[in-house]
């Protein structure tokens, strides 16, 4: 029995080390000056901690980090609000055909975005939103609708119908119930959906790279450009990758429980 336990833990620890390796390499590489970033010393600790790659990466990425911030906050809020409205109707005010409507919305979650990208860019060009953060916000709100609707619908399904009925008996209307019964119970739902949308929008690349160029680019595009541009400075790249990953990593570390709930809620059930 003891042997079996040791084997199990050994396997777990070995795989955990494998999962952590990229973090170790990122950290040590990002703290090295360029002359220490050699292939043969890839795994060695830096001889002294050097922040120059962070200052370099930060000066390159700072405008794009701000772009991502301007993008992610309104896009997350708007898509969460619309998702809550849809979820409320599709769980508590079902009508003939509402299941079909829901399935139609849900399908939008799975489409490869390549299949709408050309008309989307034509459209954004027409309305003057191409190469703007506003255009990206709009895009993320629209294509975030399926997942936020799904998540709120499943969340509201857990609120008993009897509460709605009781409020109706008390004379509350559709809007009154939403404001006084549903929204106060939605805080967890909003946290879960907001974390999910924040992470996805921050990390998104295809829309970002096709809808924006230069001054409106979010950070993931800038990070990708950082690797493509000059001779590869691995220490700067690793520092840049860490900077770009920091917001979502912080969310994961601080709100891990809700992060996991979001993962599970996004897995199409109910």
């Amino acid at each position: 029995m003891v042997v079996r336990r040791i084997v199990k833990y050994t396997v777990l620890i070995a795989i955990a080390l494998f999962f952590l390796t990229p973090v170790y390499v990122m950290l040590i590489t990002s703290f090295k000056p360029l002359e220490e970033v050699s292939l043969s010393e890839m795994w060695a600790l830096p001889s002294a901690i050097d922040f120059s790659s962070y200052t370099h990466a930060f000066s390159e990425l700072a405008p794009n980090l701000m772009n991502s911030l301007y993008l992610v906050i309104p896009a997350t809020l708007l898509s969460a609000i619309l998702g809550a409205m849809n979820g409320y109707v599709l769980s508590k005010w079902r009508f003939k055909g509402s299941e079909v409507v829901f399935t139609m919305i849900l399908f939008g979650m799975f489409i490869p975005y390549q299949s709408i990208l050309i008309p989307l860019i034509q459209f954004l060009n027409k309305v003057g939103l191409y190469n703007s953060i506003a255009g990206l916000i709009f895009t993320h709100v629209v294509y975030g609708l399926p997942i936020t609707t799904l998540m709120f619908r499943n969340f509201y399904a857990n609120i008993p119908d009897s509460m709605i009925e009781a409020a109706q008996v008390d004379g509350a209307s559709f809007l009154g119930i939403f404001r006084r019964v549903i929204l106060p119970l939605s805080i967890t739902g909003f946290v879960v959906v907001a974390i999910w949308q924040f992470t996805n929008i921050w990390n998104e690349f295809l829309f970002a790279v096709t809808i924006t160029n230069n001054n409106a680019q979010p950070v993931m595009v800038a990070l990708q450009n950082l690797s493509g541009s000059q001779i590869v400075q691995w220490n700067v790249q690793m520092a840049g990758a860490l900077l770009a990953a920091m917001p979502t990593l912080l969310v994961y570390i601080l709100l891990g429980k809700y992060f996991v709930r979001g993962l599970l809620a996004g897995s199409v059930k109910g």
Partner: protein
Amino acid sequence: MKITRDQLMALLFLTPSFLLIVIFVYGFIGWTGWVSLSNWNTLMPDMSFAGLKNYIYLFGDYRFQADLRNTVFFTILFIGFVIILGLGLAILLDQTKKANALFRNIFLFPMALSFVVTGVVWQWLLNPSTGFNQFLQVFGIQPKWYTDTNILAGFQWGSIEFGLPVAMIAVVIAAVWQMTGFSLAMYVAGLTGIPDELREAARIDGASELQIYRKVILPMLTPITMSVVIIMAHISLKIFDLIYAMTGSGANFVTDVPGVYMFETTFRGNYYANGAAIAIIMLLLVAVFIVPYLINSRRGAS
């Protein structure tokens, strides 16, 4: 039929989103389909009808054939490893109660990262002359990772060599590293949902631990496996950012996929009609998995 004020409000709530979806999902897919049948293969839009010309071109195109081959192998390996590793780790965590939260957090954190970050980091780790090769040298092997142009178990079919492109393995490693946390979280949730009484009952009937997993627990996890397969399949069929950030097309297109080809041909080469045709084929590939699943799970829900 009389509609109450409340019902009207409900419809009003749903209408903006519904219209957005109808236009921006279904309408735009239709428009992409129309573009794919046009002659718009320059910078200037040209919507004259070309029939299936763009599709016929693609299926004869060496690069697109390589893309389809790579997608098949990427999807199979990626889903296979994500499920085996996720399920294996979930069972291990289920059996060893100590430090569970810590291990779970370690396996899950890559999910918080972007595919671009993953691509950048693994590009460095799997750099052919460094990284993991320094460990592997001890065993006398030195893979070229994503720069390898070899095709394993290859056979010629038409102009293209089928088989597993070795360079794809590097991309699979990065993708599995990133996405295993998802299947792990799903399986952990599934395992906690199985009541202890069931295991107790099986134990009393004299079943061994292995038998309990094989006969009781695994069958109960089948719906979860289904969900994982569907979600991973749609991710892998449209994968773009990881490969774009990590390897690009690779020499002789050994790591090219339709997502990368679509992007480059449309937005770098201005072959809009060809790009639209690739996009429509990608959509059809995804739909083959998704539509039956959606219809099925909707039917079960209502």
